C-alpha cells in the first residue's frame, strides 16, 4: 500500500457530470454563422428600436477589426465563428402569467436541477427571471418589485420598455470596443437581464437569474445591466448549469454594474456549466466580461463567484472605484478538474480618494486541469490613502494539475497601501485519514476539506446559494485526478 492521497483523490473523483441532460424544446435558429445579416436578423427578430440595431452594427464592425486575445494561460482550439448559431429561441415563445402555461419539459428541467421556480417562489421569496436559450421564459415577482419602483426584467423587455435607461447605461461600463468577446456580445447578444433600483430603495428580495444553455451548437451571448441609483441596495444572484454536449459551446456574456452615490450592489454567481468529460471532450467555452463602476462617493460593488463548470473560463469581474471612499470586493472560488482550464481574477482600478478593495481568491485544481489567478490592482495618482488587500490561495489535488498566480500591482501614490498574500497547499494525507477515521468516505472527506478551504468566499454568498455552492464544490471534484 502507498501513502498517496492523490491516488485516493483520483479514485474518488471518477464520476460523470450530474447535470447532463438535454431538454427537448422546439427551437428556432438564426442562420448559422456571423455576418451583418445575422446581426440584423437578431435585431429584427427581437423587434428592436433603431438605436439598438445601430449599437449592434457598430460593435460588429469593430469586432471585425479585432484579434482573438491570447495572453491568458489557456489553450483553446480555434473557434469557427461561421459554424455557430448565434441565436436560438424557444419557438413557442409566449408571455406566461402562471407556471401552468410554461412548457412542461422546461419545468422538468428545472426540477432536475432542484431549482423549480415554484419552490423558489414559495420558499425563498426570490424573484427568478429564468433565461433558457436566450429568451426569457418567465419573470416572477416583477409586480411586487414594481411597487418599489424596481425594474427587473429581461433585456429584451428593457429595450422595448425602458429605452432611455438603456441608451444611458448600456455599454457605459463595458464599451462595445472593450475586448474581442465583449464586442462580439455587443453585436449579437440575444437576451439577459436588466435591473434598476431607484434612489434610496433597498430591494426587499434577492434578485436571481438562472441561466441555462440548451440548444446544441448555439453560442450564448447574455447581456446583463444593473443600475443602482443613489443610496440603493441590491443583491443579485446568477446561477447556471448546462446539459452534457459533445460539441464545444461558446459563451460570451457581458455584465455591467453601475453604483451611484451611496449605492451598494452585491453580485453573486454560481457557474456550473458542462466542463467536458474526463478526457477533455466537450464543455463550455466561457469568455465573460464583468465590470462594475462605483460611480458615486461611498458606493460599493461586491463580486462573489463560485466557478466549477466550463471547459475554459476567461473571466475577470472588475471594479472601477471612481467615487471617493468607494469599495470594491472580489471573492472567488474556482474549481478545475480533468482537463478544465480557468484563467480568472479581477481588476481593481482605484481612481477616487480613500478607496478600498479586497480580493480573496481560492483556486482548487484537480486532474490535469489548469487554474490561474490573474489580477490587477491599480492605484492611480489621485487615489490617495487607498488600500488593497489581496489573498490568493491555491489548493492542489493531485500532482498533474497546475496552479498559477499572476498578481499585477501598480501604485502611483505614496499614501496608499497594497498588501498581497499567496499560498499553495495540498490536501494532506493526515487530514484525509482523520476524516476517514471518523467514518467518512474519501469523497465526502475531500468535499468537506475543500468546502472548509473555500469558506471565506462561500460565507459571502446569500443563504440559498451557499447550500447549492457547497454541493457543487463536492460534486465537481467527483471526477478528478487520474
Amino acid at each position, binding site marked *: 500500500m*502507498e501513502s498517496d492521497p492523490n491516488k485516493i483523490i483520483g479514485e474518488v473523483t471518477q464520476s460523470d457530470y450530474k447535470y447532463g441532460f438535454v431538454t427537448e424544446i422546439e427551437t428556432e435558429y438564426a442562420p448559422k454563422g456571423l455576418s451583418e445579416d445575422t446581426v440584423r436578423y437578431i435585431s429584427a427578430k427581437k423587434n428592436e428600436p433603431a438605436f439598438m440595431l445601430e449599437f449592434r452594427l457598430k460593435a460588429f464592425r469593430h469586432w471585425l477589426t479585432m484579434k482573438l486575445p491570447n495572453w491568458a494561460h489557456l489553450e483553446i482550439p480555434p473557434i469557427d465563428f461561421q459554424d455557430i448559431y448565434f441565436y436560438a429561441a424557444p419557438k413557442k415563445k409566449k408571455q406566461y402569467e402562471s407556471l401552468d402555461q410554461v412548457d412542461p419539459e422546461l419545468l422538468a428541467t428545472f426540477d432536475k436541477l432542484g431549482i423549480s421556480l415554484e419552490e423558489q417562489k414559495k420558499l425563498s421569496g426570490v424573484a427568478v427571471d429564468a433565461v433558457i436559450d436566450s429568451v426569457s421564459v418567465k419573470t416572477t415577482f416583477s409586480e411586487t418589485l414594481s411597487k418599489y419602483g424596481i425594474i427587473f426584467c429581461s433585456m429584451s423587455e428593457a429595450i422595448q420598455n425602458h429605452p432611455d435607461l438603456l441608451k444611458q447605461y448600456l455599454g457605459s461600463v463595458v464599451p462595445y470596443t472593450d475586448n474581442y468577446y465583449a464586442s462580439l456580445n455587443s453585436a449579437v447578444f440575444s437576451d439577459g437581464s436588466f435591473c434598476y433600483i431607484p434612489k434610496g430603495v433597498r430591494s426587499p428580495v434577492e434578485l436571481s437569474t438562472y441561466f441555462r444553455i440548451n440548444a446544441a451548437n448555439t453560442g450564448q451571448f447574455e447581456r446583463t445591466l444593473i443600475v443602482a441609483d443613489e443610496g440603493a441596495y441590491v443583491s443579485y444572484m446568477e446561477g447556471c448549469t448546462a446539459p452534457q454536449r459533445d460539441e464545444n459551446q461558446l459563451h460570451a456574456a457581458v455584465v455591467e454594474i453601475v453604483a451611484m452615490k451611496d449605492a451598494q450592489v452585491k453580485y453573486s454567481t454560481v457557474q456550473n456549466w458542462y466542463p467536458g468529460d474526463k478526457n477533455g471532450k466537450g464543455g463550455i467555452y466561457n469568455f465573460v466580461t464583468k465590470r462594475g463602476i462605483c460611480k458615486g462617493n461611498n458606493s460599493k460593488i461586491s463580486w462573489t463567484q463560485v466557478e466549477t463548470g466550463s471547459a475554459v473560463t476567461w473571466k475577470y469581474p472588475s471594479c472601477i472605484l471612481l467615487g471617493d471612499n468607494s469599495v470594491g470586493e472580489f471573492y472567488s472560488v474556482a474549481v478545475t478538474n480533468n482537463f478544465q482550464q480557468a484563467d480568472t481574477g479581477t481588476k481593481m482600478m482605484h481612481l477616487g480618494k480613500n478607496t478600498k478593495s479586497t480580493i480573496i481568491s481560492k483556486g482548487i485544481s484537480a486532474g490535469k486541469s489548469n487554474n490561474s489567478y490573474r489580477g490587477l490592482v491599480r492605484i492611480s495618482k489621485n487615489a490617495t490613502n487607498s488600500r488593497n488587500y489581496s489573498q490568493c490561495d491555491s489548493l492542489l489535488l493531485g500532482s498533474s494539475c497546475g496552479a498559477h498566480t499572476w498578481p499585477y500591482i501598480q501604485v502611483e501614490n505614496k499614501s496608499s497601501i497594497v498588501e498581497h498574500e499567496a499560498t499553495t497547499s495540498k490536501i494532506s494525507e493526515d487530514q484525509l485519514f482523520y476524516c476517514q477515521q471518523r*467514518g467518512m468516505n474519501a469523497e465526502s472527506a475531500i468535499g*468537506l476539506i475543500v*468546502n472548509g478551504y473555500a469558506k471565506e468566499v462561500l460565507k459571502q454568498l446569500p443563504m440559498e446559494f451557499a447550500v447549492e455552492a457547497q454541493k457543487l464544490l463536492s460534486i465537481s471534484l467527483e471526477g478528478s485526478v487520474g
Partner: protein
Amino acid sequence: MLLSIKNLHASINGKEILKGINLDVNQGEVHAIMGPNGTGKSTLASVIAGREVFDVTAGEIIYKGKNLLKLAVEERAREGIFLGFQYPVEIPGVSITNFMRTAVNELRKYKGLDALSGGVFLKLMEEKKKLVELTSNLANRSVNEGFSGGEKKKNEIFQMAMLEPTLAILDETDSGLDIDALRVVANGVNKLRTKENSFLVITHYQRLLDYIVPDFVHVLFEGRIVKSGSRELALELEEKGYDWIRKEQEG
C-alpha cells in the same frame, strides 16, 4: 472476542516497526498500552485504524470475527473503531458541528438509519458537549484549528462520545492535559464504558490509570508486546522505568 491480533508485522518505507504483535481484547475490557517513545504504540493504533502509509507484511487482525485488514479506513470506523489521535490534525474552515454532522450521518447511513435533522443533531451535540465539558465557543470553531493541546484532546473525547464506538483507541489522550482536564477526559471515558465496548488506552503515565482503571496493562517494546499484567504493572513501570525491561530483553 472483539479484537484479536496475531503476529502482526508492519513497516513504513521498508523499515519494520511492528515485529510480531499479539493481543486479544474481549468486549468490555480496558487495556492499557505503555512503552518507551518510538516503540510503535501509535503505529499499532494506526494499523488497527487502517492507515495506508503502513504496510502490513505479516499477521492478522480479526475484529468482530472479520478480517479487519481487508476493510477500508472508513469501513473500520463505521464498524465501531475509533482512534483518538495523539496529534489531532487541523481542518481549516470546517466547523466541529459540520464535521461531526457529516461523520454521524455517514455512520447512520451505514446502519440503515435516516440522517439526523439539524435540531436533533444539535441537541445530541449539546448533550455530549456537557459530558466532556466542551464549551460552545470551541464547538463553533474550525476542527482543531488553533486549539491548545488540551483542547484538541478534549475534542477527541467529544467525538468519541458522539460516535459511540465499540473499540476506542486513545493514543496519549492524557498527554498535555491539566489535572482538571484529565479528570474530565477520564470521566468521559468512564461514562462511555459498558459491557459491550472496549478501550485500548495508550499512555505514558500510570496516573491516568487511577481514573481509568484498566483490566490489563501491556508493555510495548521495540515493536513487540514484551510484558502483560494487571494494573500493578503500571505502578511498577512508574517506579522502575523501562531499563529493567530493556535489560530483560537484552539478557
